[in-house]
């Protein structure tokens, strides 16, 4: 199962990853991070397909994606 790891203190709460995710894995947190932003977090990690679209949209390189085995991709990156 793919694993989306979000460095919450790098996140600036722009929500681009939330809109980019085709599986609706991510949602905005109700808590604040150290910068004072509502950070994004994976609330449905079991739905993740490891497409890395959230990480591609993230302007702050806060998202890291890890997978086991086969990698599914929508397009070459």
């Amino acid at each position, binding site marked *: 199962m793919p694993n989306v790891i979000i460095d919450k203190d790098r996140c600036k709460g722009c929500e681009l990853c939330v809109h980019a995710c085709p599986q609706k894995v991510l949602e905005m947190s109700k808590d604040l991070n150290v910068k004072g932003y509502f950070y994004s977090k994976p609330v449905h990690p079991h739905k993740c397909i490891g497409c890395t*679209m959230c990480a591609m*949209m993230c302007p702050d390189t806060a998202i890291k994606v890890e997978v086991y085995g086969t990698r599914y991709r929508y397009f070459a990156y």
Partner: protein
Amino acid sequence: MVTIFTRPDSMFDTPTHYCPGCTHGVAHRLVAEVIDELGIKDKTVGVAPVGCAVLIYNYMNTDFVEGSHGRAPASATGIKRSRPDLVVYTYQGDGDLASIGAAEIVHAANRGEKITVVFINNAIYGMTGGQMAPTTLPGQKTTTSPKGRDVNHIGYPIRMAELLATLKTPGYIVRSSLHDPYHIAMAKKAIKQAFIYQLEGKAFSMVELLSTCPTNWGMTPYQATQWLKENMLQYYPLGVFKTPEDE
């Protein structure tokens, strides 16, 4: 467990100073990923612009020179001509490249300097507070055009890619966008091709990236990407305008 996406080695761990949702971060990452993939980190020199990306040397793990406002192609010309073995790229915004530096970019392209220019077009002056830029769309409201850009008074926005593609000197001129993951992948392909043409010593290359400025456009980051898709893509068509193989 295999890591398939993480911060590239050519970027430092420093958090950027950009506003939330600004696509400058994406453009930095694409350039860094291309430098990593081509393995040219140790022989790359960047030229930083004046604009929001003025502090790019804090984020990129390559050598950097700070250019004067708009004169980054001139600095890059000097570096490339004295050390042809280095890979030289400039990273410029639209206020820097299309306005004050219009002469430098046109003549660098016309001389066919073997440099790569990454041009961020967000249709506004970001750093100074949202003034009207040469690339501001007709009718777009900015702090210096509160009733919208009047094309009878100011003229139409400059399409830099089309302008440079009319030159006879060979070059690689392409426009791409950063508003969704698919176009980000396409943009990365274009940047990689631009660096490859430079490594082969073939031609001047410029990649124009349509970008968002949520703060000065007065929108949320997601609305800004949708606004770019609906408005900017009509006026600035995407595609490859010139390749060195054309004649």
